[in-house]
């Protein structure tokens, strides 16, 4: 098993180096001079310009600049935002819990609904339940989620007035945020109504973000289940007189879950892309909105490091999924 883990880690190193090259190169291929870009609208004197060039190391060969960039990264220096002047890493860490909270809620919704629906659809293959849910799943899979979010706002915030339009919690509440997760912090604060305010802000964005993963998981669970139900060991289990519940729950579902877990892992990238759109629609103060805002504000250090951090997280989650996959499926591990 250790060999397997090390093998996977070694496999990641070239990819990680590639990601840093992309993030590093991103600022280089921008049209215009990087120092003038950072100076912004005001411009600067020639002396100041030379000084900046030297201080930022732009007068040195590109490979030396890259190595220095890498060196800084390894020491946790991700540069400073032009707009907030704060280190990018601290901004990222401050905003990340908001995105994580949203993403966790979305993936939980997607799994809690998607897996049972997929299993039932497979068990009742060809029934009206199968046809309706799989049609809905295909619609969900085809959904432009930015539009779906606007529709939900029209219905639940505009017409019914049930949920707020944007933000994480009503401005009436203010309390320290030790965990960064609004649901937990609002409970800890003990303020009346804070938790329900946080929850009502979270509902619509979670549903929007869950839509595509839910559709994918439902479809994948159904086809994995159908495949497993046709296997010899399921027939054996049936033939030796096990109850249908046991056959499905123990013999079939456990094996069908293997590809489904991979699918769920692959959804992390989808969730990050979805977070960009979802957070923009609901003004959710997470890293998706932060990236979009930084791109439109031309805050390039943020874009550069944000890109790197997000890709890094996606990579690590995929690694964990890979390892989990090896753990539950020995055939992979020993290959």
């Amino acid at each position, binding site marked *: 098993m250790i060999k397997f883990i090390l093998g996977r880690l070694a496999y990641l190193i070239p*990819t990680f180096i590639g990601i840093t090259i992309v993030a590093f190169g991103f600022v280089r291929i921008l049209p215009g001079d990087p120092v003038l870009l950072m100076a912004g609208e005001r411009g600067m004197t020639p002396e100041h310009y030379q000084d900046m060039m030297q201080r930022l190391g732009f007068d040195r060969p590109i490979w030396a600049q890259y190595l220095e960039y890498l060196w800084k990264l390894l020491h946790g220096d991700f540069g400073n935002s032009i707009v907030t002047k704060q280190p990018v890493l601290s901004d990222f860490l401050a905003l990340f819990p908001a995105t994580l909270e949203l993403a966790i809620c979305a993936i939980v919704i997607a799994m809690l609904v998607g897996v049972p629906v997929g299993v039932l659809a497979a068990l009742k293959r060809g029934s009206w339940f199968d046809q309706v849910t799989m049609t809905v799943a295909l619609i969900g899979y085809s959904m432009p989620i930015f539009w779906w979010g606007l529709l939900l706002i029209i219905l639940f915030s505009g017409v019914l007035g049930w949920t707020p339009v944007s933000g994480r919690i009503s401005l009436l509440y203010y309390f320290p945020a030790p965990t960064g997760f609004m649901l937990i912090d609002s409970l800890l604060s003990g303020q009346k109504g804070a938790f329900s305010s946080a929850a009502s802000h979270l509902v619509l964005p979670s549903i929007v973000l869950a839509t595509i993963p839910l559709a994918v998981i439902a479809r994948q669970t159904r086809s994995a289940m159908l495949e497993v139900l046709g296997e010899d060991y399921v027939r054996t289990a049936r033939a030796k007189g096990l109850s249908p519940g046991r056959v499905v729950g123990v013999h079939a579902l456990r094996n069908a879950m293997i590809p489904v877990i991979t699918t769920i892992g692959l959804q992390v990238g989808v969730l990050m892309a979805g977070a960009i759109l979802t957070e923009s629609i609901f003004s959710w103060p997470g890293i998706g909105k932060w990236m979009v805002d930084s791109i439109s504000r031309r805050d390039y250090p943020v874009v550069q490091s944000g890109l790197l951090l997000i890709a890094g997280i996606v990579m690590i989650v995929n690694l964990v999924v890979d390892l989990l996959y090896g753990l539950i499926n020995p055939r992979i591990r020993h290959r």
Partner: protein
Amino acid sequence: MAVMTQAPAPGTRRQMLAEFWFYFRANRGALYGLYFFIALVLVALLAPLLAPHDPILQDRTALLTPPFWQEGGTTAYLLGTDAVGRDILSRLIFGARYSLFIGVVVVSISLIGGIVLGLVAGFFGGWIDMVIMRVMDVILAFPSLLLALVLVAVLGPGLTNAMIAIAIVSQPHFARLTRASVLGEKNREYVMAARVAGAGRMRLMFRTILPNCLAPLIVQATLSFSGAILDAAALGFLGMGAQPPTPEWGTMLAEAREFILRAWWVVTLPGLAILVTVLAINLMGDGLRDALDPKLKRS
């Protein structure tokens, strides 16, 4: 359902097409998707004839007119007007041109790029293979919309750059698929035979091996087609894709955002157009997969 043999039965091209059509037709959803897609292509081609108004002409006397069946609507603007008095129906009709164009361009670029890279990687192997596939891994490590967004920020907002960015991020899927099929095919007997008969590398790659790798690529192409439409609309929605007053559906949605609680039609209709188009293409994709790839489970 009947089971196809793994290798297509020897026969003329017409027989193979007939067989494909037989399986494709069995899938009702795919058939509806195809009909809708054909209709959409016609609408896009005939847009100047079909659209009742100029898509960017502003009628200052009719701002935010509701659709004709609602109170205050007129039959002059069947689906109403937007905030600056442009006819929504005409904009939707012209928008079909943009979406189909985006799909065609993105899929063509990424398909050609992916096939060439995948063929080279799979055929030559060794360090060429390793370099190409690691580069593909790097592209795939970024969430596609985020990478496209950043690429557009570098290249400058606009439809052309959005299409280039989306093509770059969707191309690794084609490269991986092509490489995997090439690895499966290149040691088969017919390739050996061609090699022994003296076929050159180019001929081996493009004439001998490639045609046998096409089925999964066609399925992936439909998926990328709908994905490209969605991503381009998302970029337009974020203000980084087609720029106003282009009647691109995502851009229309972005312009309509502030009216969501006042004028439902300016928001609902462009999104519905995106959804139905993407759905139709995905339905076709499911049908193609079932008809072309007997190895995948029929379900």
